[in-house]
Structures are given as C-alpha cells and as structure tokens.
C-alpha cells in the first residue's frame, strides 16, 4: 500500500459495532427533513445518539440535465445549467460557457471577462451567505439567517437589474455577454461592497467567538487532507484541511490571473475551520470585485461566434472554482449542433461522499452540522 491516494484505508462498507452489542437504531433522516437542505435522504445507523455509519440516498431531484444536453443545441442548453446549483447559477453558467468557448476556440472580450468575474464573485458571496444562514440555522442559531438573507437581497437586486432574473440568471452567453451592463452598474456594485464589508464583521460577531458555536463546530466532522484528496473533495472543505488548492490560482480561467487575492486555508479540517475559510473567502471575493470594478475596460462584450454553433469533433474538460468546489464540464462534440455527451462534475455530489467518513463516531447533532458545512445543493447532486 504505497499509493496514498486510494480509499483502501477507509473502510466505508462496514459500519462500526454498537456498544455492548446493543440494538442499533436505524433512522431515516429525510427526504423530508428540515436540515437536509432539500431532498437528501440519510439512513443513519445509531447506537443511542452515536452514529455508527450512514448511507446517503439521492436522486429525488433527478431531472436528467445531462441527457437533456444531448437533445439541445449548445445555446439552448445554457439556461439548463443554471438549474443545477440554483444558489450559484452564475458560476454554473460561467463554467459551461467557458467550456464551449474552449471547444469553439473563441475567447470572450476583456470587458466581458471582467463583468463575468464581477458577477461570479458576487455569486460566490450570495452562495456563501446562504450557506452561512442555513448552517447556523441547523446548529440552532436562527438569527444569522435573516441577516444573510437581508444582504443577499442586495446582490439579487443587482442581478435583477442586469439580466432580469434573480436566481437562475442565465447571465452569460457563449462568447461573452448578451447584455452590456446597465447605467450605474459600477456605482451600485461599489455601493454594495461598502455596504457589505461591515456586514461580514456583523456575521462574525454573532458566531466566531460565540462559545456555543465554537463548541458545536470545533473538532466536529474532521477530515484529513489525505482523505479529502482520496475522495475527490474540493473547495472550501479541501482548503480547510490545509491543501492550498484553488482553481482560480492553480489553473487560472476567465482572467483571474490579473487579480491579486489570497487563498485562505486552515489546518484542522473541522467544521469550525470550514466556517473560517468561507468567511475569509467572502473577504477575498470582495477584494476581487473591487479590483475588477477598478479595472473594468471599455469595449465589446460579445466575441464573434457563429449563429449556428458547430464545434469541431472532439472532447474537452474544463473546470472552474465554483463556491462549493471544482465544477467541471466534460463535453464530447461530434461536429453537429448538439453535444454528443455532456457530463457535469458537480462539487456537491463529490463532497457529499465524505459525509459518512466525517460523521462516523459523532453524535446525531453533528450529522446536521456536517451536512450544513459540506454546503451541498441537492439540485446539483442529483442534476
């Protein structure tokens, strides 16, 4: 056993034995449960309150997005990807558009790239805000939810003004943007940033040093960097385990290499660290947006792309750093107007695999905390 990147050392097949051969209690948590973030069903094996093992049952929200892709043209499939991770729809759109652009050998003009970065980072903020609110709600703090939703509203207002939709935005087009930014876009984003920066402190004030919050999250759901890599876990979960891996730096896409920002990491890989990493990421996103607004160039927002897209036959894999981790698209083209195969690598789906490992030996209340900290969206898990 020399290769450390295998799962062999993790025996995830057999659950642990209950204490003194007591009867184990099997509980169905979900698909209708207040804290499973949608329609996740977790079959918990319990010894009293202790978790011996668990099994995730997914597919309750399966809509066959990948299959739909095979029957739509490249342009027509674009809005569908927004429906996967519906709280970070802009990131999904960015990933898809960039993949098809790579396949077509087109590059979006600089202004479009900058606007894309602004909107995507705003989306990261919105996604992390939703995560923070619901995660805190799961742990029992009901107030942060309303604070984050109040501030998320401002981001959604910017989206609404930009493209008319608030959630499933369909903001980007293959080759750039459909719309030029509206009058006062820069001013409003700047206003939002100055409004939002103190708000992060406000969230932290409620939670970071809160004794109960720290007790509930410290040393809960620990996952080591090695296990993260073995399971393919990415995003803030991986970074909280101490691996400095962010696709925005590692494989720069869009024009992230033009911006100056840090990758926040922590060492322990527990729920509290993942909380800290995401809070720090919000601050970094604010930095990126600031730079993008300052350097926003003039020019066209749409590259020259054919009206009927027929990418040359071939295949491509392109991935971006979505708020939840590595979001990858694998597209096989047979030279026709429709993709031969679309495969999505959703971060939530891959990260969810770590749930069993992270919950073993913890208590029922920790399962809730861990589901919250993985930040899954079931629309993306099931597609």
């Amino acid at each position: 056993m020399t290769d450390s990147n295998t799962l062999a050392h993790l025996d995830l097949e057999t659950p642990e034995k209950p204490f003194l051969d007591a009867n184990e209690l099997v509980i169905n948590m979900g698909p209708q449960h207040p804290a499973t973030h949608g329609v996740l069903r977790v079959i918990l094996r319990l010894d009293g309150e202790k978790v011996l093992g668990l099994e995730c049952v997914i597919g309750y929200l399966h809509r066959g997005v990948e299959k739909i892709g095979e029957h739509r043209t490249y342009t027509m499939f674009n809005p569908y990807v927004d429906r996967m991770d519906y709280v970070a729809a802009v990131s999904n759109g960015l990933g898809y558009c960039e993949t098809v652009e790579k396949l077509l050998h087109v590059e979006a003009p600089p202004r479009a790239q900058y606007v894309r970065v602004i909107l995507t980072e705003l989306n990261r903020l919105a996604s992390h805000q939703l995560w923070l609110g619901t995660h805190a709600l799961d742990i029992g703090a009901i107030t942060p939810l309303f604070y984050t939703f109040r501030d998320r509203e401002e981001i959604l207002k910017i989206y609404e003004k930009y493209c008319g939709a608030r959630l499933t935005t369909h903001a980007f087009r293959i080759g750039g943007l459909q719309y030029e930014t509206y009058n006062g876009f820069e001013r409003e984003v700047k206003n939002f940033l100055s409004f939002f920066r103190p708000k992060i402190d406000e969230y932290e004030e409620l939670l970071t040093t809160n004794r109960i919050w720290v007790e509930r999250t410290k040393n809960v759901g620990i996952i080591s960097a090695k296990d993260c890599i073995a399971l393919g876990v990415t995003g803030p979960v991986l970074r909280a385990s101490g691996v400095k891996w962010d696709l925005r730096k590692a494989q720069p896409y869009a024009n992230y290499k033009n911006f100056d920002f840090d990758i926040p990491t922590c060492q322990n890989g527990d729920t509290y660290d993942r909380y800290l990493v995401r809070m720090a990421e919000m601050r970094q996103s604010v930095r990126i947006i600031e730079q993008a607004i300052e350097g926003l160039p003039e020019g066209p927002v749409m590259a020259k792309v054919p009206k009927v897209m027929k990418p040359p036959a071939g295949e491509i894999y392109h991935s971006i750093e979505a708020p939840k981790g590595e979001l990858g698209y694998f597209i096989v083209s047979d030279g026709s107007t429709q993709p031969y195969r679309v495969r999505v690598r959703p971060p939530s789906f891959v990260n969810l695999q770590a749930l069993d490992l992270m919950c073993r030996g913890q208590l029922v209340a920790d399962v809730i905390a861990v589901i919250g900290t993985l930040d899954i969206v079931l629309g993306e898990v099931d597609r």
Partner: protein
Amino acid sequence: MGHDLMGQIVQYIQSYLSSDQTPGAAGNMFWVLVYILAVFVGLSIAVIAMNWLERKILAHMQVRLGPMRVGPHGLLQPIADAIKLLLKEDIIPAEADVAIFWMAPFMVVLAAFTVFIVVPFGPTHAVTDMNIGILFMLGVSSLSVLGIVMAGWASNSHYPLIGALRSSAQMVSYEVAMGLAVVSAIVMTSLNASGTGTLSMIGIVQAQQEQGVWFIFKFFPLGLIAFFIFAVAMVAETNRAPFDLAEAESELTAGFHTEYSGFRWSLFFLAEYSAMIAVSSIAVTLWLGGWLRPFPNLLNGSTWDLIFSLFAGVTFLFFAAMCFFNAVRMPKHPFFRIQTIGLAGFGVVLGLIGLVMLVPAVRIRVQDIFWFSAKVAAFMYLYIWYRGTFPRYRFDQLMQMGWKVLLPMGLGVLILTATAGLWPLIQHSIWHP
C-alpha cells in the same frame, strides 16, 4: 330559611376579606376557587400574550416584522392560531400506544399548571401557602418530564423517542444543580433571630423583606452565583433555546411532539409557556424579592412608596399611549380603518385599566401583583433573547455543563453560603472560646 342561607354564604365570603392570610391557609373554599380561576385565566392570557410577544420580539431582532395581518400589528394572531389548532384533525398514529399517547399532553399541562397553587403574587395573593411550598413547586414541575417521556414513548417513532431520552437525561443533569442553588437560597432564609428558615414561598419573600436585602445581593457574590446557576438550569428545565434539545427542530424535526397535532400539540405549547412562567416565578421569589418593589433601602419613605405604587397604572397608560401612537401612524387607506379602530379600542381598554389602577384603593392591592409580574416578564424577555442569540448545545456538551460545571459550582456556593451565614458564630467561638 333561604334568606338565612344566603346570609350565611355572604358572611362566609366576607369573613375572608379581613384576613391577612392566603385563602388556602385561611380555609375559605370560595376564595380558593376564585383565586384558582383568576390564576388560570391570567395564565392563559399570559401564554397568549407571550405567543404574540415572542413572535414580535424575535422578528424585530431578526430584521423582519412578524405577524402583521390578523388584527392591528398581528394582535389577534394567537387567537387565530388557537382556533386553527382546535379545528385541526386529531391524528393518533396507528402504531401509537393510544392510552399513554392520550394522557401525555394532559400530564404535562397538569404539571405546568398545578405549580401555580403556591406562587405568591403578593403576601395574600396566592391560592395557598404551603409550608413546603418550594419543594412542592420543584417536585411538581419536574413531573412534566414524565409527560414528555410518555409522549416520546407512546408515539412509537424514532425521533420522539430520541427527544424523550434527551429530555429525561437533561432533566436528571440539571435538577441536581438547580436543587443545590435553591438550597443555598433557603439557607439564607434562616438568618434571623430564631435561626429557623422556611420553605414556604411567602415565607421566603418575607425573609428577604425582614433582612432588607434580596437574596441575589446577599453575601455578594454568592447569591448572584446561585441565581446564575438557577437561571441556567431553569432554561434547561423548560427545554428552551439554547437547551431545546428535546425538540431540536433541525435535528429531530420536532422531538417528542413530532407525532402530535392540533389540540394535543397546543397543550404541549401551553405547558411549555406556563412552565417557563412557573420557573421564572421560582427565581423571582427566591432571589429577586418576589412581590417587593425595587430599591426598598435606597429610595424609602412614604413619597417613594407612593411613586412606586403608581407604576402599575402608569405602565398600562404607557401601553395605551403606544397603541394610540401607532393607531395615528396607521395608513389612512380605508382598508386599514377597522384595524385602526381596533388598535385605538385596545388602547382605550388598556388606558381604562391603567386609570383604575391609579385609584388608591386598587393600587395598594395591585402593586404586589404588578411587581411580581414585571419581574417574571423580564425573565420571559430573556428567554426570547436567548432564542434569538444562541446556537443549540449538543447533547453531551449539555450534560458536561450540568455535571462538570454547574453541579460543583452549586455545591461550592452552598458550602460558602452556609459558612458565610455561620461566620459570626465561628468568629465568636474562635475569639471567645
């Protein structure tokens, strides 16, 4: 003959009025019934008011409005909810143990309401004055956990079972610390000339009156620490946030009352709030001087007595003024006419109550009840504040806190309080053997 009987009855009723005892202690059954009825009605109104206040206060803490539609500022929302709950289908799960399932909510309500027999709203304003009052209160209020366990067991379902288990474990861990804190307050009551303490709820308040200090300030900071232990334990005892593990919504859906609906569920709700009021009254009685007005030593004299006796009426007038102010601020659209009239009407009722309470004959009798209720209301606000601020404790952390923090603290405070109480004696025997 009939006239004679009437006369006897009237005499029986009147015979209590000159008494300075509680009706139960005086043995007058008519007034006992009147008091029980008054407490029951008052408690129901308090629970309804708490329901509305909790929603409104929590909403304002969370930058939202709360109920606004049913009645002006949602004032009729609790009544609408009560009607809805009564009209709902009564579901008993097929696999449930019907008899126990049926009994459990009544058990909880019974425990929560019975304790109010000994709650002293004033020197004579209690249903009865037992010489074991505080023991009775602690004993009966812990019965509510039996109802919770029965509910969890009878539902024959996993989530309620875990909720019930948690609740019983929680109760066991916190009762002990709570009891120790209570004992340290009872020890303080014995610091008088005769050297005998009391367990009577009225006696405890009178002891504070005689010693001229509320027990929270006695032997500073010992009284404060005992009070703090009790204040933490009582939140755990009533299963409220941050110790609401038994009904932890995000973990156990609704905990022990997952399978309950409609009227039976509303009984649990009623019991939860009246239990909150009950334990708060214990805290007020033991440490905060019960019905005594604040600053008895600093601001004394007949002028200050007069000013403090006006507080009850003034408070109601203030609420009335708030109603009028908001009625004026209501939108002028015809849609809101009924709501505006309703709010103004509510203000008129509050204002009239306030004016009645300013009448000297009334205000002398009412001020005890007012100060007691005001102190309990402050605790109620704390409960809501906790809920808006704290995340939920985990099961093992809660037990750890109960056994490893509060219990040793309670023991230490008890020993130190006893030592402090005996200090003059110890000093005497050391220096003058």
